[in-house]
């Protein structure tokens, strides 16, 4: 029934070879490297890890990283100067984004725009929840996302083209060549969209037209039996048009550019069975520029640039003890620089760090991992981030896991040195080190209407620090009951102190604000995550059902204390009557949904080369802003309503060609006022051609 429906949808009915990729990635035997910096099966790890494989990415019709991550349990995409990732209730700043183990740079207002990353060259995405500062240092406070890119070992190639609503097009091509012990992989992508406008009554697009290009390459060479060289590089460039209307009706037009590159040579030396050395060097540069002009006169309105570089040599030593225990030691240096219209001069940062991790496996059922990292910053007090985790296999079906660790995030360049007057909207933002001078300058220019908070209070900000606990249970009913059912539950609690938030310091004469950054004392996030998948035979095909749910409770502890002390009130805006706020009324931190859920169906009919998916993503209501004067989330009209989006795809493979069609946001749900990034219903169709030097092996990895 479902099959015939799908075939009808695609309009092609021919027998074909099965697709090479399968949903294998959902199982627990996928090998990941992010959690421990060593290759481990997901199921054997003592911390919560999510793996998303290429098959799922392709079957979901994803183009960019945010498309696929938002469908994963416990993750949601939040929009603030780009599409960022919220993990365990933390804003995007607190999750480290790695590509092949190396950090991506170039965050705007703390958000690393995931829309920058094409999924075309991704082999696997690994998400580790909970702090991993013990291995990765700053930013790995809420979690780590590691994108593992393709590294084929045979000669092959592919070309794919996709077109869809909003004139969104994607062209991707890659080729892998093998010559003896050397592999070369090249990848290219062009992604463009005409954008969209959810509010046609106002001038300017909700999302402006853009085009971007990604190129990447990898050379791997087995130099000798024991020495392997990997050289990886990546380049990204984007152009986006901008048009906006000022309050005085003047039109502003212009363009923005983003460029990013990474170079990453790695030499792996397997000295002996017990010793392995990895020499890594990583360099990344990120730059943006924008040039805005008055449409009528062509006169300069605002021109800005931002340049950041990141250099990191690192040495990692792995020692295997009696084939059972593993010791990892690492030492490295990070040199960073930033230069921007918005920062005074060229600012430099450096970090010297070392880390150690011991994986102790006393019995077959028990794994204990202890580790820690010491980061010595040029600007801050040194940080030590320990982590301890353990996994115990109660039975072949059930495993318990627990981990506890410290995470930290150092104040970034922006929070210290930003010196920015937004020409378009008219607000100003100053880093804590620039605030006093900035306020003085604005006052001298007569731009300050009123000081709203004492600038001296901002002082020096400190690194943000968290203590986290994760407690989980994973059940795999395959081995003992021959049931393709996986279930996992994870409870988490993060206690954060010295959280850095933007705060209004003064009001300008134009009605806009002057912002700076301050340590917001204490916050906690806690919750539970449940994830499950079940595979069943449906006719000649396979249906994989995945479902997930996260309950989240994220609160500001000082607000909790104030409510408990009876010091928080609210005024009914209609009756103007004031009443005391009760604890039950407090909705916690803004932009956090209490409930998030997903339900996904993936259907495969290998004999006919057919696959399809239906995915539903739910997010319950979340706080947007205060409306009744007490600055906390406590009444219904302060929330953005919850919503659900449905996504469909269907694909058919004939020999080397795959045709895919899909619809994102099937019901066309939009909320222009509060969720401008949610475009309406989007259809698309794509064609992919895969080629391999020795075809017809078509080993189905299931």
């Amino acid at each position, binding site marked *: 029934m479902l099959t015939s429906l799908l075939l009808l949808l695609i309009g092609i009915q021919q027998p074909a070879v099965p697709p090479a990729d399968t949903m294998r990635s959902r199982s627990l035997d996928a090998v990941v490297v992010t959690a421990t910096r060593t290759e481990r099966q997901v199921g054997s790890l003592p911390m919560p890890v999510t793996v998303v494989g290429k098959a799922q990415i392709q079957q979901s019709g994803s183009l960019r990283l945010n498309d696929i991550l938002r469908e994963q349990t416990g993750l949601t995409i939040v929009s603030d100067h780009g599409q960022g990732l919220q993990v365990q209730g933390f804003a995007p700043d607190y999750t480290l984004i790695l590509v092949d183990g190396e950090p991506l740079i170039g965050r705007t207002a703390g958000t690393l725009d995931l829309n920058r990353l094409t999924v075309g060259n991704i082999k696997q995405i690994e998400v580790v929840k909970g702090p991993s500062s013990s291995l990765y240092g700053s930013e790995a406070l809420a979690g780590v996302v590691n994108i593992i890119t393709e590294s084929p070992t045979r000669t092959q190639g592919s070309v794919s083209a996709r077109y869809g609503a909003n004139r969104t097009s994607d062209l991707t091509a890659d080729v892998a060549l093998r010559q003896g012990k050397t592999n070369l992989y090249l990848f290219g992508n062009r992604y463009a969209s005409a954008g969209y406008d959810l509010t046609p009554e106002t001038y300017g697009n909700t999302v402006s037209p853009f085009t971007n290009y990604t190129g990447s390459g990898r050379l791997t060479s087995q130099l000798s039996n024991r020495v392997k060289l990997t050289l990886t590089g990546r380049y990204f460039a984007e152009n986006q048009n901008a048009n906006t209307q000022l309050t005085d009706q003047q039109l502003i037009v212009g363009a923005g550019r983003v460029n990013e590159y990474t170079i990453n040579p790695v030499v792996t030396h397997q000295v002996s069975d017990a010793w392995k050395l990895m020499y890594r060097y990583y360099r990344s540069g990120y730059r943006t520029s924008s040039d805005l002009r008055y449409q009528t006169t062509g006169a300069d309105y605002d021109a800005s640039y931002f340049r950041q570089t990141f250099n990191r040599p690192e040495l990692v030593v792995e020692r295997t003890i009696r084939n059972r225990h593993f010791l990892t030691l690492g030492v490295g240096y990070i040199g960073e620089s930033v230069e921007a219209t918005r920062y005074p001069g060229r600012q430099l940062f450096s970090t010297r760090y070392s880390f150690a991790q011991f994986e102790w496996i006393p019995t077959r059922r028990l794994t204990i991992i202890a580790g820690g990292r010491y980061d010595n910053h040029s600007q801050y007090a040194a940080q030590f981030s320990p982590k301890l985790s353990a996994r115990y296999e109660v039975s072949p079906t059930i495993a318990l896991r627990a981990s506890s660790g410290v995470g930290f995030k150092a104040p970034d360049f922006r929070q210290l040195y930003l010196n920015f007057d937004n020409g378009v909207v008219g607000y100003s933002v100053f880093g804590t080190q620039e605030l006093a001078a900035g306020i003085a300058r604005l006052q001298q220019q007569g731009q300050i209407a009123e000081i709203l908070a004492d600038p001296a209070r901002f002082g020096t900000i400190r690194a943000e620090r968290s203590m986290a606990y994760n407690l989980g249970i994973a059940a795999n009913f395959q081995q003992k009951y021959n049931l393709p059912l996986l279930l996992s539950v994870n409870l988490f609690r993060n206690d954060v102190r010295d959280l850095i938030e933007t705060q209004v310091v003064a009001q300008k004469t134009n009605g806009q*604000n002057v912002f700076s950054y301050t340590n917001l004392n204490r916050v906690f996030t806690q919750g539970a995550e449940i994830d499950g998948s079940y595979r069943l035979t449906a006719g000649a095909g396979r249906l994989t059902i995945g479902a997930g749910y996260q309950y989240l409770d994220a609160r500001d502890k000082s607000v909790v204390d104030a409510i408990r002390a009876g010091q928080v009130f609210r005024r009914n805006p209609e009756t*103007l009557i004031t009443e005391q706020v009760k604890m039950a009324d407090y909705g916690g931190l803004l932009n956090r949904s209490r409930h998030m859920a997903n339900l996904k169906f993936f259907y495969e009919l290998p004999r006919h080369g057919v696959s399809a998916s239906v995915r539903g993503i739910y997010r319950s209501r979340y706080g947007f802003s205060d409306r009744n*004067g007490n*600055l906390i989330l406590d009444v219904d009209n302060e929330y953005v309503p919850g919503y659900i989006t449905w996504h469909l795809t269907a694909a058919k493979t004939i020999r080397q060609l795959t045709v895919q069609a899909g619809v994102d946001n099937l019901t066309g749900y939009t909320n222009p006022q509060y969720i401008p990034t949610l475009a309406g219903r989007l259809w698309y169709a794509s064609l992919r051609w895969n080629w391999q030097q020795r075809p017809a092996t078509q080993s189905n990895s299931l």
Partner: protein
Amino acid sequence: MKLIANLTLLTLSAALLTACSKDDNAVTTQPVQSVTVRDLPADPVSTTASSGTATQPVAATGKYTLYSLRDNKVIANTDSASNKWDIGFRSTSIIVNGGAMRSGQGGANVYTGTFDALTAIPASTTFAQDQSVTQLAVPGGSGNGWYNYSSTTNLVSAIPGRVLLIRTGDGTKYAKLEILSYYLGAPANPTSTTPSRYFTFRYTYQPNGSTTLN
């Protein structure tokens, strides 16, 4: 010494007895009423909603709107150097008629609690005065005094549960005052374009000089 103390006690007792008997017989004494003042302009700058469709820009005068709580009316700014007024408004700044920079004997205290539940000025209350532009009895700045400022919505909102305890300009009477809105018409959902600097507030003035407020 002891004699004087006893005499004082005696006098006090007599006064209290007299007061009680007076109260018992009085026909004019009523519980004090709360009064609501709507849309008191506090030097509006941007626009004013005129009767027509257009909004007219209004130049700011930079002057405080002075108010007498006893008379429930605006006092001319020319009388600023008198003790006729008790409280003044300009933009988000609130002044009282007392302190180094004022002529009167007034003062204020920012109290946390609900207006209705506050039946008397607490005995421990200390009244601050306007000593300088940066040291006002009612502190300026978001979260410090009577209002919060939201950077998301760009709106000023009166902090719920903040009551201004006022000593009048002549230094002899007390009142409690709660700011309800900063926007013209006290709309339930003001926007950043709603004309601002219009105070809606309610207050209870105790004419008999006591600190009882109900």
